[in-house]
């Protein structure tokens, strides 16, 4: 049996390791598209802050890790799939035959249609190569414009601030982290950043990145402009699925997979940021987050190896540190129709907690300025724990969430 995995991010690596454990003796080929050994994009901001060197981003630290498990690591980017001949065509002209295939090609940053984004000095912060360019340009005192204050933008923001640059952030929507934080929390994060000396423009679009006197000049639709030594573009990501054209594989935002992580094509599975899989909250969604990618990788591998294991769906969750202000969001954090919410807000101390319930079950949560026992929010949501009497207590004081959890854990 030859298993081939396209993509050496967290989903691909966990899948390869799970296959090695579940089906020992099989051939496992892990295809990586970049020059570096398998690494974590999530860790790049910590290279920029100097906490780790480039090697610190590597997903596995032990020398010979993949060889020891019988995993063949091969460099190559997929150009297409010959579904009938069961072969992956590679961009370098080569091919890789498979019996069972996992697509774990991840996502790529979106380049918005803004003139001037091809200029030198404009970078995404997505790959270790991007990281190397940013390290050169984001020197102490340099002027930097960050396009996009979403989740990824805010992680990079933290790193840029730590490097001592003069930072301007431009976000098209009305608050920071709009896809993870509601208006209350997103506005507090903006206030926090501004108090730290970061210029934040919300509800503002960059209309052009021009060049003036040998430097970049970022033009905004609110009439302002900012000179820059570096522009970092973090305007969202999209699943890497272009190469499946012609296979007939069903895809929307990502490649559609069922509860066994199977695509619509026989013998092909998908996992991680490129996969649109079962959502714990219902339906099928792309959850481009670390926990989902590793869960997808593990479940896909088990099913590929014939160990039938249904996946109950991924839960959207994020944790973010924006220049020292820590925020989390879980599940249905917005809370809408059919949900009840408990809120506690201390604006002056940048503390906020919102719990969303459906009947007496927690379905979503948001927090600012809290770092203790945050995981129980996931536990309570994903276990669908009926909170009974505790629901009323939490409506009264949401801070008692950990007590509610412990009371049920020992019930």
């Amino acid at each position: 049996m030859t298993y081939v995995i396209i993509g050496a991010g967290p989903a691909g690596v966990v899948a390869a390791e799970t296959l090695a454990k579940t089906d020992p003796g099989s051939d496992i080929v892990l295809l990586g598209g970049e020059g570096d050994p398998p690494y974590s994009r999530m860790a790049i901001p910590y290279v920029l802050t100097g906490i780790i060197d480039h090697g610190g981003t590597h997903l596995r630290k032990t020398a010979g890790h993949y060889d020891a498990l019988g995993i063949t690591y091969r460099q190559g980017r997929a150009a297409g799939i010959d579904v009938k001949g069961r072969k992956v065509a590679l961009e370098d002209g080569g091919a890789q035959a498979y019996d069972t295939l996992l697509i774990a090609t991840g996502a790529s940053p979106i380049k918005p249609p803004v003139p001037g984004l091809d200029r030198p000095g404009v970078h995404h912060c997505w790959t270790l190569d991007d990281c190397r360019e940013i390290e050169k340009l984001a020197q102490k005192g340099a002027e930097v414009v960050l396009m996009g204050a979403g989740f990824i933008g805010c992680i990079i923001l933290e790193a840029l601030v730590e490097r001592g640059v003069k930072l301007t952030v431009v976000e098209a929507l009305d608050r920071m982290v709009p896809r993870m934080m509601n208006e209350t929390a997103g506005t507090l994060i903006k206030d926090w950043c501004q108090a730290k000396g970061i210029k934040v423009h919300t509800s503002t679009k960059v209309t052009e990145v021009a060049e003036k006197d040998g430097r970049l000049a970022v033009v905004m639709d609110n009439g302002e402009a900012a000179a820059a030594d570096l522009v970092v573009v973090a305007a969202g990501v999209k699943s890497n699925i272009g190469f499946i054209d012609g296979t007939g594989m069903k895809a929307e935002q990502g490649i559609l997979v069922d509860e066994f992580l199977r695509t619509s094509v026989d013998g092909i599975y998908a996992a991680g940021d490129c996969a649109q899989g079962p959502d714990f909250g219902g339906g099928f969604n792309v959850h481009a987050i670390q926990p989902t990618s590793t869960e997808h990788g593990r479940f896909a591998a088990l099913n590929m190896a014939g160990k039938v294991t249904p996946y109950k769906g991924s839960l959207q969750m994020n944790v973010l540190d924006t220049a020292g202000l820590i925020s989390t969001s879980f599940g249905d954090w917005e809370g809408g129709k059919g949900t009840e919410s408990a809120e506690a807000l201390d604006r002056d101390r940048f503390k906020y907690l919102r719990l969303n319930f459906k009947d007496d079950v927690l379905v979503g949560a948001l927090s600012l300025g809290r770092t203790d026992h945050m995981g129980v929010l996931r536990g309570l949501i994903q276990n669908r724990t009926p909170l009974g009497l505790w629901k009323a207590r939490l409506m009264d004081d949401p801070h008692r969430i950990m007590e509610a959890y412990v009371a049920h854990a020992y019930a």
Partner: protein
Amino acid sequence: MLKALNIDPGKCTGCLQCELACSFENEGVFNPSKSRIKVFNFHDQGRFVPYTCTQCDEAWCMHACPVDAISLNKLTGAKEVNDNLCVGCKVCTIACPFGTVNYNSATGKVIKCDLCGGDPECAKACPTDAITYVDADWTGLDKMRKWASKTDAGQQAAH
């Protein structure tokens, strides 16, 4: 045989010796807020419940870590954080459905129970045997694990 912390809330008097012992052993200070074991006070019932990591088999924290900074100590069964590798991204703190991994903003790293390398100070400090360190097979932790495994998340992980 692996040993595990056995917690019997019925015996806990809320003296917080475990929290002091834990914070002193691991952080060098007598400061309950830095303890990895936490005693919850249900004052309306007169009940105290010590709570910490069960070193669960699922090891959500370990699998979620993007930089391989959490690993299994094969001798103790503990999932241990390697401070040299931890970047402080906090993904493990939201991935652990038991809420037993916390971020320490003073160090920029996460902290969790590591069973003190096989000689847990909380158990030694407990004057009433509410916390004991015993053979894993007969601990009350099974009760919590069962509670976890009957859930969706637990069933997923059990495979």
